[in-house]
């Protein structure tokens, strides 16, 4: 497990870049929650656990499942290489 956590600031920067390009969010918070999962089976592969809150007009008219699929698609290969789990909160300006 050691070594992986140090990668997380770079991972967050990359996630921020990809999500900003895709959604032009009004608000975007990415929190590293890997420490909460250290030692459990899913953390052993060295990928991170993150919480992402996105406020973006782009989600309007989409069901929760479609919103999350859009986020996963925007992150692309990172879901395989860097991210073990993503807690997602996706809202539109009307839903605040």
């Amino acid at each position, binding site marked *: 497990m050691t070594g992986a956590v140090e990668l997380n600031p770079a991972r967050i920067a990359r996630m921020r870049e990809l999500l900003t390009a895709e959604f032009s969010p009004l608000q975007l918070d990415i929190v590293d929650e890997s420490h909460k*999962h250290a030692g459990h*089976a899913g953390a052993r592969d060295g990928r991170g656990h993150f919480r992402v809150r996105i406020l973006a007009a782009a989600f309007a008219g989409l069901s*929760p499942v479609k919103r999350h*699929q859009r986020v996963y698609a925007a992150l692309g290969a990172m*879901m*395989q290489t860097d991210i073990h789990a*993503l*807690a997602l*909160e996706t809202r539109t300006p009307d839903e605040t």
Partner: protein
Amino acid sequence: MNTEERIKKIVDDNPIVLFMKGTPQFPMCGFSSRTVQALKSCGAQFASVNVLEDPDIRANLPRYSNWPTFPQLFINGELIGGCDITLELQESGELARMAKEAQKAA
């Protein structure tokens, strides 16, 4: 039957099915565990598939469902979402309604 056909059969045969890590009795991941609790709390009868014991489904379901992580909840053959969405639906009371509908139709 290839894996995709097997997945299709599972989601068609079971009105509510959870693809998870571990079993409802012994979940092996916090997200799977919370999703099981949400389903149980609204009295849903659900089938489950332990993807840790079925590497083919674990490898192929993300492509089938366009969803990269586990758990994954399906109701009436349709992907509902993972842990976050299931918990949101539980809080709003929607999950109980959907579960009741699905069981009635079955």
